[in-house]
């Protein structure tokens, strides 16, 4: 058994506890009046994030009602064809990018620190930045429809429809607006992964984590590998639309199928990125109302991790009708069947838990039952369309529309509704109405099935999706009318839910109203800004059920960090697997910098849409400046003392660098995402190689061997000097450090210039053919990374000169070295591909 430290045996004196609470309240106080919007605390930003996601959800829902009104009768005249195209494109894009993904980030940012007994996530300002980026991008994309300028190409934007046959800036709004939101999603993924791995309470080993954290860990990792291919695709797409580089134009060697690959390598995992966090909510709620621990914890972890992996092997099933070889179709059909295994396993675990416990009836459970039943039906039609011969028939019909809404609404939206009812007391200390909850549930469930079940039949009868109307007498009329009636019933259900959330309600919920066993229910009603009163030592998966006097000990501050002596915001960082405390982390407080940084970075994307290049560039420079100020003033702060007593006889360091620090992990995770985007571009190069006889062309028109190899040598030298600079800093040899890093800056600039010289000197024209275009893309990608690397090197020079970095306090240079490791890999691959591959492919 464990030999963990025990909570203080005696109650701390009341006067001391009052003083501690005063100090904690001061440290964690949310800003007031107009400064309220500078808040970064997870409990505040999480609520904003959730509210914004729901506003977008209702906007997307209204668009859906417009469509159903248009399709209720044959030859409907409510919307023109073009307006209808805007409406369905925006409906899909809003629901996927502005609701389904952000809502999971929102709920996680709001609840995860509570579930982990942490005071906050490690990068609260990053969460705030992600939120502002999301709101700015979302309003931009949604607002376009009011100017009749919304995208019309469907939520997957297939070229050549969207490159050659779409006028206006709709497609650009989609590409740039959503790229910006993808950046926000990656920011949230970094925050949540580091949060799960490093901010668990002492003793919460990886086998004791709440299942929610397992799912979020998996989903965070999935975002890192799923979103970057889409960002890479967006880069190619936007270069084609703005500069006429022919990536998807067959006349000049491009291929529209490359977009489909990149989109669906993102798009299929995306479905599971939406689904898994909702299952995670189910995995938290079911044990509570079964009054028993989850059955098959290890099996649920299998399901989460297994689904996460297999979901990446399914993307081609969206492309069964594009004429791929039968063997490719067979492989992906097999993988599509296989994903049913882990998906089914978790549902059996939930059923087993319900059977093993004594089930307490409740509104959240009702939503979950409705959700699981609906999802299983959608899963079964999913297995049907995973079979290629059936898919050939059902592709692009309303059968698919029915299928995808069954899985997404059953698998994601209903569990989220359950989560709202379940977790609402944590947010503002009040319970939602059970009566309204039941009304809302039955309206939504009935409305849902009345809407979407008939769509399977209209689809099988041959109604294609995305048509703005249909002639009468083809057998679609009655089915469509039924669907439209159902849509309004469904909407009424969500309207009741929305009313329940916003209606005035003075009744405060009792503490832990559902008698749950997990840490988030430690919260007082209403919650306090500091989160947990003291950070507990964990021995069980359900500490509130299993650990004696747990609530009392936490409340009386008998565990870790019951105080904020220096009036700073602090939380405990623990080791990844066994959750041993390793650092007392000071997290930053309120600041407008994340909002300003989001405004300026958003400006780059938004102004580019309108081809306002100079304002976009200025906005970019201001954004960079803001980020640098943010980093300079708010990160890697050297503490006034080395270590601090956090209670129970434990003293923890206040500063950590390298792999022991959270910042190093954030850099590592971010660079994994960055590397994935880069690999996607390289995939593009080899994709063209497989489809063309003469790719790369022979004799090679460029970029030759000399310039790229010179560039590689210079970049690798810069990398080596950066490594040495870190050592010289450790050895406190300031002169060598500065000289070495300054030389590294010059070498890197030279390397970037030499790299660009390759295609420039050989006269590769990116508009003429896809070969020069893809070479230029790889070169520019690498050159931009060199530029970022140079800024980082210069930043470290300045930090040490300013006394903000020292031999012992070297977070900055440690992270920059990590960046340069990835930079070196990028450089080697780029040069290997553009200079080496033309030589070996002859």
């Amino acid at each position, binding site marked *: *058994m*464990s*030999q*963990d*430290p025990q909570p203080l045996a005696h109650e701390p004196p009341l006067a001391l506890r009052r003083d501690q609470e005063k100090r904690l309240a001061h440290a964690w106080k949310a800003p007031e009046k107009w400064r309220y919007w500078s808040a970064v605390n997870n409990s505040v930003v999480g609520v904003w994030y959730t509210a914004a996601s729901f506003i977008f959800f209702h906007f997307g829902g209204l668009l859906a009602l417009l469509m159903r009104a248009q399709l209720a009768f044959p030859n409907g005249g409510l919307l023109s064809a073009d307006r209808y195209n805007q409406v369905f494109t925006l409906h899909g894009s809003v629901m996927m990018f502005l609701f389904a993904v952000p809502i999971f980030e929102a709920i996680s940012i709001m609840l995860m620190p509570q579930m982990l007994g942490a005071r906050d996530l490690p990068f609260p300002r990053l969460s705030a930045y992600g939120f502002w980026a999301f709101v700015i991008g979302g309003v931009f994309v949604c607002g376009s429809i009011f100017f009749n300028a919304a995208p019309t190409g469907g939520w997957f934007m297939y070229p050549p429809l969207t490159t050659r046959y779409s006028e206006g800036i709709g497609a650009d709004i989609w590409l740039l607006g959503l790229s910006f939101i993808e950046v926000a999603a990656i920011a949230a993924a970094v925050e949540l992964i580091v949060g799960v791995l490093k901010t668990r309470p*002492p*003793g919460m*080993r*990886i*086998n*004791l984590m709440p299942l929610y954290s397992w799912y979020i860990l998996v989903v965070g990792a999935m975002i890192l590998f799923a979103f970057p291919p889409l960002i890479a695709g967006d880069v190619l797409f936007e270069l084609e639309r703005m500069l006429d580089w022919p990536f998807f134009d067959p006349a000049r060697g491009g291929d529209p199928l490359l977009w489909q690959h990149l989109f669906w390598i993102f798009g299929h995992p995306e479905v599971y990125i939406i689904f898994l966090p909702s299952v995670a909510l189910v995995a938290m709620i079911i044990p509570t109302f079964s009054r028993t*621990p989850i059955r098959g*914890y*290890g*099996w649920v*972890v*299998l399901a989460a*991790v*297994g689904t996460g*992996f*297999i979901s*990446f*092997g399914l993307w*081609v099933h969206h492309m069964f009708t594009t004429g791929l*070889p*039968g*063997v*490719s179709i*067979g*492989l*992906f059909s*097999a*993988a599509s*069947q*296989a994903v049913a*295994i*882990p998906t089914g396993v978790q549902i059996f675990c939930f059923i087993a838990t319900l059977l093993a416990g004594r089930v307490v009836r409740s509104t959240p459970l009702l939503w979950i039952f409705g959700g699981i039943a609906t999802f299983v039906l959608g899963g079964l039609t999913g297995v049907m369309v995973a079979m290629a011969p059936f898919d050939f028939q059902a592709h692009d019909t309303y059968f698919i529309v029915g299928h995808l809404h069954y899985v997404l609404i059953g698998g994601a939206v209903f569990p989220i509704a359950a989560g709202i009812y379940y977790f609402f007391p944590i947010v503002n200390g009040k319970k939602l109405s059970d009566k309204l909850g039941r009304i809302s549930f039955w309206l939504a469930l009935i409305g849902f099935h009345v809407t979407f079940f008939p769509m399977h039949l209209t689809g099988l009868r041959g109604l294609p999706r995305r048509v703005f109307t249909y002639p009468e007498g083809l057998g679609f009329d009655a089915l469509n009318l039924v669907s439209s009636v159902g849509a309004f019933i469904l909407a009424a259900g969500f309207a009741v839910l929305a009313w329940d959330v916003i209606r005035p309600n003075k009744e405060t919920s009792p503490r832990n109203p559902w008698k749950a066993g997990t840490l988030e229910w430690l919260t007082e009603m209403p919650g306090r800004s500091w989160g947990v009163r003291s950070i507990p030592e*964990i*021995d*069980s*998966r359900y500490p509130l059920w299993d650990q004696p006097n747990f609530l009392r000990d936490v409340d009386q501050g008998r565990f870790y960090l019951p105080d904020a002596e220096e009036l700073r915001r602090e939380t405990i960082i623990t*080791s*990844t*697997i*066994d959750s*041993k*405390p390793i650092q007392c982390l000071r997290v930053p407080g309120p600041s407008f910098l994340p909002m300003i940084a989001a405004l300026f970075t958003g400006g780059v994307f938004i102004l580019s849409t309108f081809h306002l290049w100079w304002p976009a560039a200025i906005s970019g420079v201001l954004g960079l400046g803001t980020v640098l100020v943010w980093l300079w003033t708010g990160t890697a702060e050297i503490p006034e003392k080395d270590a601090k007593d956090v209670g129970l*006889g*434990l003293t923890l360091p206040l500063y950590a660098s390298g792999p022991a620090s959270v910042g190093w992990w954030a850099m590592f995770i971010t660079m994994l995402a960055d590397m994935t985007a880069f690999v996607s571009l390289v995939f593009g190069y080899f994709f063209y190689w*497989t*489809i063309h006889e003469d790719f790369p062309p022979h004799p090679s028109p460029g970029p030759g061997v000399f310039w790229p190899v010179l560039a590689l040598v210079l970049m690798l030298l810069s990398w080596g000097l950066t490594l040495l600079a870190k050592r010289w800093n450790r050895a406190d040899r300031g002169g060598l450090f500065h000289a070495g890093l300054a030389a590294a800056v010059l070498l890197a600039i030279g390397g970037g210039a030499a790299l660009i010289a390759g295609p420039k000197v050989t006269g590769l024209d990116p508009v003429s053919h896809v070969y020069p275009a893809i070479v230029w893309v790889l070169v520019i990608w690498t050159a931009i990374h060199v530029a970022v690397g140079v800024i980082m090197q210069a930043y470290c020079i300045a930090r040490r000169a300013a006394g903000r970095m020292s031999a012992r306090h070297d977070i900055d240079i440690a992270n920059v070295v990590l960046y340069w490791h990835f930079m070196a890999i990028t450089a080697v691959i780029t040069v290997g591909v553009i200079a080496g591959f033309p030589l070996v492919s002859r």
Partner: protein
Amino acid sequence: MIETQAKPVKREGEGKQLFLLTVSPLIWAAHLLLSYITAAVWCEKFVSPDGSLATVRTAIVIYTVIGFGATLLVAWIGWRMDRLDAAAPRHDRDSARSRHGFLGFATLLLSGMSAVAILYQAMVVIFIRSCD
């Protein structure tokens, strides 16, 4: 202080087991990608679209034997980790043993799933005989 009991670091050390969880699914992914790329490159570069697929099918059989065997090996490693503590194979305790057993068990399960998924993919060899 924190738990500092003498423990066999090699067997229960930190870090490596979380990585072990991902090994079998990565083998599955490698099997899928290799099979897919082999087929795509073969059908695009080496034979006409209605040509024979014999070479690709042989390759997929080889990938399958290797991949399936490797997942079984990882499964065995996971099983051994779980069985270290045969007297009380519980995974919900706050102890290094329990955590070790849990990670072994999860590795075993993920290996099983990956092995099945690899066999699913190998079935194309039976059903598909040409590039078309």
